[in-house]
């Protein structure tokens, strides 16, 4: 584990009831690296949406999947890596929809793309699954 940059790694099961604990760590990590409250809320929302997508779309609501969230930071950015062990996702299918059409759902990817400065799937990790990375720049 890279002890200079990694703040903490979380690992939890793909259950909606686990998201609150995850969010509180994200919020604290954002505070620690000096993001303001608004930025911290943005980061919390985006990581939460990414984990919801893993629960819904990667694990198809199966509650026994494992989700790992790694939080790292350097001078420039707060970085999140979300790992699952589900079949590989077609990243082309993860796109945001036309928001002018009012309907429930289909907001997560839009939230993530709007709130984060960088995001995308990385190469499939060893051991399979998916690895999604998000960055929020730290602007002084």
């Amino acid at each position: 584990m890279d002890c200079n940059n990694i703040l903490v790694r979380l690992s939890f099961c793909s259950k909606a009831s686990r998201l609150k604990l995850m969010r509180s760590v994200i919020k604290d990590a954002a505070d620690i690296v000096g993001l303001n409250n608004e930025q911290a809320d943005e980061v919390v929302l985006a990581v939460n949406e990414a984990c919801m997508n893993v629960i819904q779309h990667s694990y198809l609501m199966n509650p026994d999947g494992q989700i790992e969230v790694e939080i790292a930071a350097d001078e420039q950015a707060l970085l999140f890596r979300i790992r699952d062990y589900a079949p590989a996702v077609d990243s082309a299918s993860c796109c945001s929809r036309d928001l002018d059409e009012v309907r429930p759902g289909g907001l997560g990817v839009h939230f993530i793309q709007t709130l984060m400065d960088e995001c995308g799937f990385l190469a499939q990790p060893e051991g399979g699954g998916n690895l999604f990375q998000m960055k929020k720049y730290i602007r002084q």
Partner: protein
Amino acid sequence: MHFPVQEKQGFSVIALSGDVDMNHSPHARKAILSCLKKMQHVMVDLSSVDYIDSSGVASLVEGFQYARSNNLEFGLLSVSDTAMSILKLARLDKVFQIYPSLEARLENAR
């Protein structure tokens, strides 16, 4: 998580609270739709909401749509700054009827 409903001035006022996230938004959805299915006008009070994510927003959109197709009124009360910024992000801040309070909605009607 149980979201209380109060009958006030011809509206079912549903008070959401805490974290309206993937864990709790199914309860919010149920509370909203069950009032609407009884053909009640609905106001959702967001004053005690600490957190809302896309699943919570989806419950509100479902209520909005059900109300529209059934000629019922559906609105939001006391939307916090946090909740408002998420509605804006979803470009729903101009879609929903939003009032500071039930009183403001009633004033409005005069």
